């Protein structure tokens, strides 16, 4: 990638200069994530599709990259912003630098910037559209880029193109996975719990999914605005009540939408691996990994047979729902971690139990 003086220009006009490595100009929604470890898991998380991501931790790439950590095939960021990328990693796992990874995936990266200053900006003003461009880019070109309409097809970009299966044939449970941009480790967790998975493209009609007669259905995480997923939501409506359903992140949101609730955009979202969540069922507090910019609107739940089972300890927003009329529960956070704390895998057990397991 070419190394030039570059900058991030936010829609509110603020400019942050640094060193840009890129082959093209980038535009996207600028978000920040606060995890101190697991940069590769974060880079390969499809839920970030279409976004320019800031890593608030300033030293990134210290242990290099290894395919083992990938959560998807590549990286679907529009761009990355870091304070410093380590060019000589040190680890027995190291099989290449983050810069090499970015180059391979053609992701522009701005380094040497005051990432904390940008983070503070976004925290105060909310998520903003931004561009990553060479420093000498004319202003009208920047304005034109900033005016690029928002994307609405991120899920289509990251979902599997064809049905595939995972896990042993003789597994105890058969689970249909609706892939809105699923993280690899979710699938691995389910397999580990004794599931055989059939992974479907996001828009697969419900009939086709139900045709395999799974023991349960899993709705995955994914990028973008859940309200954009109209066909997916219609399909979910047809699956409700037919099978036990478990959803994570996007899966949580689209299930709420399919049940008549609403979602809304958050000021700057929850992105990090230190988010405390209260489990209202057993009163435990869990530290969770999160990555979402939308949430289920609490007011829209009024009168619906839906119970809130998890809440964020920080802002009291909804982090988990249970559906009273059908065997379904969903969480906004990521029990599969990767990156992040691994103490929440019990949710997968809960799903297994719903499918008749113990």
């Amino acid at each position, binding site marked *: 990638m070419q190394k030039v003086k570059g900058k991030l220009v936010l829609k509110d006009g603020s400019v942050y200069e640094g060193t840009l490595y890129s082959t093209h100009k980038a535009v996207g929604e600028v978000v920040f994530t606060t995890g101190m470890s697991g940069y590769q898991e974060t880079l390969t998380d499809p839920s970030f599709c279409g976004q320019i991501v800031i890593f608030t931790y300033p*030293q990134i790439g*210290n242990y290099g990259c290894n395919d083992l950590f990938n959560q998807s095939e590549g990286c679907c960021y529009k761009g990355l912003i870091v304070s*410093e990328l*380590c060019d000589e990693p040190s680890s027995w796992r190291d099989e290449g630098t983050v810069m090499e990874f970015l180059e391979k995936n053609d992701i522009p990266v701005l380094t040497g910037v005051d990432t904390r200053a940008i983070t503070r900006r976004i925290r105060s003003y909310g998520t903003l559209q931004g561009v990553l461009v060479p420093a000498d880019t004319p202003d009208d070109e920047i304005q034109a880029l900033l005016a690029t309409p928002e994307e609405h097809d991120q899920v289509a970009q990251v979902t599997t193109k064809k049905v595939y299966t995972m896990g042993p044939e003789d597994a105890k449970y058969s689970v249909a996975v609706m892939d809105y941009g699923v993280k690899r480790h979710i699938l691995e967790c389910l397999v580990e719990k004794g599931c055989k998975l059939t992974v479907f493209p996001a828009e697969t009609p419900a009939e086709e999914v139900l045709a395999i007669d799974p023991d349960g259905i899993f709705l995955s995480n994914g990028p973008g605005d859940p309200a954009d997923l109209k066909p997916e939501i219609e399909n979910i409506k047809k699956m409700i009540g037919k099978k036990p359903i478990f959803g994570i992140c996007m899966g949580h949101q689209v299930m709420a939408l399919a049940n008549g609730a609403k979602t809304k955009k958050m000021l700057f979202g929850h992105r990090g691996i230190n*988010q*405390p969540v209260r489990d209202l069922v057993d009163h435990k507090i869990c530290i969770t990994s999160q990555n979402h910019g939308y949430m289920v609107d609490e007011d829209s739940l009024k009168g619906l047979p839906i119970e809130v089972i998890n809440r964020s300890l*920080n802002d009291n927003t909804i982090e988990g729902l249970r559906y009273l009329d059908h065997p379904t529960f969903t969480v906004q956070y990521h029990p599969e971690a990767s990156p992040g704390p691994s103490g929440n895998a019990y949710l997968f057990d809960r799903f297994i139990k719903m499918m008749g397991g113990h």
Partner: protein
Amino acid sequence: MPKKENVKKVMVIGSGPIIIGQAAEFDYSGTQACRALKEEGLEVVLVNSNPATIMTDVHIADRVYVEPLDVEFLEAIIAKERPDSLLATLGGQIGLNLAIELDKKGILKKYNVQLLGTQIASIMKAEDRELFKETMEKLHQPIPQSTIVESVDAAKEFAKKVGFPLIVRPAYTLGGTGGGIAHNMDQLDDITTKGLMYSLIGQALIERSVAGWKEIEYEVVRDHEDNCITVCNMENIDPVGVHTGDSIVVAPCQTLTDREVQMLRTAAIDIVRELGVEGACNVQYALNPDSEEYIVIEVNPRVSRSSALASKATGYPIAKVAAKIAAGYTLDEIENAVTKKTSACFEPTLDYCVIKIPRWPFDKFVNADHTLGTQMKATGEVMAIERNIEAGLLKAVRCLEIGLIHMDMPELHKLTDQEVFDKVRKVDDERLFTIAEAFRRGMTVDQAHAITKIDEFFLRKIRHIVELEVRLKSEELTPELLREVKERGFADVTIGKLVGKTGLEIRALRKEWKILPVYKMVDTCAAEFDAETPYYYSTYGVEDEVEDTPNKKVLVLGSGPIRIGQGVEFDYCSVHSVWALKELGYETIIVNNNPETVSTDFDTADRLYFEPLTLEDVLNVIDREKPEGVIVQFGGQTAINLAGPLNDCGVKILGSSVDSIDRAEDRERFDELLTSVGIPRPKGHTVFDIEGALKAANDVGYPVMVRPSYVLGGRAMEIVYNDDELKYYMNNAVKASQEHPVLVDHYLMGTEVEVDAICDGKDVLMPGIMEHIERAGVHSGDSIAVYPPRTLSEHVIEQIIDYTNKLALGLEVHGMINIQYIVRDEKLYVIEVNPRSSRTVPFLSKVTGISMVDVATKCAMGVSIREQGLEPGLKLFPDYYAVKAPVFSFNKMTDVDITLGPEMKSTGEVMCIDAQFPRALYKACIAAGTHIPKSGAILITVADQDKDEVVPIAEGFEDLGYELVATAGTAKFLEEKGIHVGRVEKASAGTPNLLDDIKEGRICMVINTLTHGSDATRDGFKIRRSTVEHAIPCLTSLDTARALYKAMGAMRRRHVVSVVALQDLKTE
């Protein structure tokens, strides 16, 4: 769940004196805990023998007992106060051990006291090696192949099975006392013998060494509802093999994958849950650098040094949260004090990195073994916060105050390349600097890694610093290059040196090019939430987060890391100064870098800057904050040294002026003052070379006291008795020059008296006078001090008042002044004057009831003594005695001579108060950890010049029923005086000699004085060291011995355990 209903009155155990392995971190955590409990409306009874702390201030706890941390005294306090609860997990290992003992002896049960926080059973599971092993096995947590032994033979047996190297870890000790790595049977024998001795329960763990693995720590907090979080993880740059307290540490972990981070996090939480910890806990791991294999090294079920570091590194107040949990709260019920919006139930995330470097006492103990291993040797530590590792490392180096501003040690320049490369192998306090030097000489990262096992990631950061040096030397200094090196933490002085300019010139250039630091906030959440805490660090970024306020501001300089000669007492002073300034309506700013202290708590000053205390770093803060002035008189020599340079840069020094400081420190100007007011001092001269020294010594007459000018803590100070000794001193101990003169004074043997006074320019307030038990010649910091004085005549006291007035007014002191006098033949001589706060200020403040720093700060700000409602002059003496006794850490420092002399050696102090002097002294001895035997044999071996003097002392101990033993010469002498003395063989004789007697427990105490200029010194050294290794008292001053037998006599006649709360002292 709200706080526990049945908790109304809580006893908190502090950690006692500062020793190696247990420094100021427990003042910080204890103070936080007491405040947290008081916030809940609980009555707090505090016990801590250390007077130099904030936590023993009368307003930190409702009842403050500065008493020995000993079960007998604790029981007396419990009986008197009848607390319903005890909190023991915030007083370090001492507190924990006492809680176990109180429980074991049934005292808690007897008085119906419940233990708050982590329970005994949990503590035992972590502390008892066998239970720990069982617990880890139950959890399938890997621990090193090991065995628990109670004998050396058992250790050897194990070694035959698993081979070497082996680590010996004694159970229930502090800072790894007595531990070590054994590479062969002999070493194993030696280390195990000592280890078993230091272990409170005579147990040691022998384990397979995993030296070279990564050492990782997790700080965990859990509540009784089983909510459990990790506050911080930390990676030691020094791999396993160096005690974590002696390791350079970085937070968060830098070289671990998320899988590794989460694997160890999960293990930590599993362990803490299984133990049932309620509060804070620390888990240490060794992680194989080539796999995901790990082992659990150690678990500390309490607040620790690491938790203090983690608190300061993240902003998460672990001690406060632990105290609230003990009071019954759950994590989610406790507010996040930093954001004020979220709860304490979360895990901090950093957007910076933190570097900790230990501060070692090798500048004082030059001859000590500098090798770092499993036994901790550092007295303190510094912490630096930056946005990259290089800058963090360089900032931390500047914080250390070891005369270096950069990772470049001039002593290494002299070495050949090969010598430098060889030195990289040495695991010592200079390794970081040696590695940098080796890179300068062409060593590769791979080579350095092969030798040191330090991760290449860190080595490359050090190499990067060296690469930048080369660029500065070879390239033109452009704004881009200057910004780049500033971003990587280079000091102006360093840059200047490399490009041929002064530091101030670089500073001017930076200002011209607008390359200025910005200050960012430590907020626990990487800016995700708006934070309320004004806790800042500097970095060369874009956005500055400091909010401007219209208030009048004053900046207080802190005192940096804890070291011998500059301990927690100066932190006490800085904190009090901040409080007094707040009272006067100023907005207060503190600059300091010691993570273990109250002064660096984010709610002490209005604004905290975690920065090195160098001219550049302080000026940058001043540029940003524009305070009215700077207070330097409370930050020890660190701050005083900055007064002149700051003043030269146009900064206003509040209180006593730079000129006043100079007049006290500059020999000639000081002599002028003394002459003008007619105060005598021991005759002396300033010299610049050996010839001058010899001439001066013969003029003033031997013995003479020699020392370099401008010293604190008696560094390189000695008493010499003849020309030969003087020559040796001048050649070896100091580097005399025109810039660094040496003072030669006649040594006057007499009673040493110390005064701390406050002056407002017109009047002088003298809260008290302290008399030392040891004669002049023993450093005042190592002497036992008594308040009020016991032997001074009316006449002498009047002279003291007169001289103190004259000196304070003559020096135009505005604030604090410390004066040391010698009384000889009813005549008073002045030996030293410091127009600043001294180490005795907290002691004197506590025993006189006058909060001296508050008064002095107000004087410095122009509020007179009378305006403060105080009467100038000497305060009337009370009807009790307070004794301050020094505490040493000799058991951590091999090869150090324990003889007391002009060079300060103690690391901490204790205080005890009683209506009767002997009882106060006796208590102080117990508090200082001097285990006075009830009976047994006392070995007397003294220099010829001391033989007459030792006679009544020997008689005294004989009367108390002790058996006396001595070598032939001394024995004969004493027998002639009618004293019964057994014979022992000299140390230089064949076995069995007196060293064997000590080793095998036949001698319970030693009285030994230093023989001058004879071969016997070596024997003496061996005797003294062996008393340390075998933990028996050794008195090296006859004054101490005399006072001690008298005190013991009084205790024999009437053994009374009396305790008194500071609140009950009738100071008026």
